[in-house]
């Protein structure tokens, strides 16, 4: 218990002193996980819309894969992205291994099924008759998708929260493809693992505190928007 209290005190001191390394790690974490979430949205939302309405052979297989992917172990993603980006791997010539970009890619892969699955689920909750009604209102195909997107906007907001939450808190993939290089690819989670292993619990606690506050404030802001229209 002492350890925790001491750690917390030190942690606050660290935070209040505006430690430049903590700040740098925090900003990188935000940049990497934010970008990864954004990419997963650009790919996952259209994919989710498509999977919700499409009829094709093997659709259940794809949907099953997406649903499984929602719980994809980050370590496994890290492994596969490593194999792809490795010097002798198929994308080795890009020289992305152990760069922040590599983490973005791995995290986007982790968030993609989450965003896709939640978008799909949100669309499937709409009345199927709404499709005919929107077309009957005179919507062109583009207008149709725009209206459907607007109808599921709160579902997509949930997808953003879940996607961001899944990547900002993962450590396995960031470690595997980023390598936790100080001042370059070190993010909050990998830094915490390192500090714990070195026995620097105060630093670990400080970083953990930052991560929690960060995640909570972002999610809180989105929650405010989401709950403004609560009907239950």
């Amino acid at each position, binding site marked *: 218990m002492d350890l925790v209290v001491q750690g917390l005190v030190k942690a606050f001191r660290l935070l209040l002193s505006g430690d430049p390394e903590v700040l740098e790690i925090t900003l990188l974490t935000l940049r990497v996980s934010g970008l990864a979430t954004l990419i997963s949205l650009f790919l996952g939302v259209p994919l989710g819309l498509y999977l919700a309405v499409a009829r094709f052979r093997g659709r259940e297989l794809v949907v099953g894969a997406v649903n499984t992917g929602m719980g994809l172990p980050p370590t496994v993603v890290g492994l596969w992205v490593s194999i792809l980006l490795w010097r002798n791997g198929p994308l080795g010539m890009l020289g992305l291994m152990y760069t922040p970009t590599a983490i973005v890619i791995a995290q986007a892969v982790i968030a993609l099924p989450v965003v896709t699955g939640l978008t799909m689920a949100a669309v499937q909750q709409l*009345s199927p*008759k*709404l499709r*005919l*009604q*929107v*077309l*009957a*209102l*005179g*919507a*062109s195909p583009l*207008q149709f998708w725009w*209206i459907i997107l*607007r*109808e599921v906007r709160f579902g997509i907001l949930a997808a953003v929260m879940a996607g961001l939450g899944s990547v900002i808190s993962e450590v396995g993939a960031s470690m595997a493809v980023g390598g936790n290089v100080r001042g370059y690819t070190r993010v909050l989670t990998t830094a915490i693992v390192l500090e714990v292993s070195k026995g620097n619990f105060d630093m670990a606690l400080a970083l953990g505190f930052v991560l929690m506050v960060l995640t909570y404030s972002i999610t809180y802001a989105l929650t405010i928007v989401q709950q403004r*229209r609560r*009907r239950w």
Partner: protein
Amino acid sequence: MTAVLEARDIVIKKGGRRILSVDHLAVEPGEVLAIIGPNGAGKSTLLTVLACLDLPTSGAVFFHGRRVTRANALAVRRRLAVVFQEPLLLDTTVLENAAIGLKLRGRRREAEAKARAWLARFGVGHLAAQQALTLSGGEAQRVSLARAFALEPEVLLLDEPFASVDVIARAGLIQEFKSILSSTGTTAVLVTHDFREVSALATRVAVLFDGTVQAEGPPEAIAAHPRWGALADPRTASGAGSGGCGWH
């Protein structure tokens, strides 16, 4: 005079089964054509095709004499309006719901004024700012009707539009709808299985049974028909739910 909407040799198959087969059905300008028949007769399927929301397996729908194809269906749809049994409002304000059709047609400037006027006409003008999904069933269906009229459609297609409105509110809404329909001279196709709606609103009736048009004529003639007259009898055709009893 050419018909506004015309179905010729329409066949519709769903899941390998022929569910509709209509040789000829025309909607003339200014008329209110009622399509009646029991559950499963194919009324909704027929309305969907007439509304150009679905192309028939074979045959075609003609709009002002021109064949409706995949390429021109959107342009035709934009001259029609459809009201379904459920109000199917979007998750936004009542006003936005009533204005959306005009906005989709690029007529943003007039959209909200028209929407307000039609909401008022259907007695829900005071709800304009309210979120549509918080409305009662009857209010929502009034908004759905206002949304359709705001488009000033050349043909208004309605699929059992009063079935989801409770019995007490229904008679009043039908009367308001009737006066609006006649004052605007709107051409309409009304799917129903309640003959009281037919007597109140229709100028002509088509009886649909087993996917084919079995009889066509003025409401009085259908009511007097030896076989289909049963429809007009409230004891055998009780309206919502069980249009099928006493048919054979």
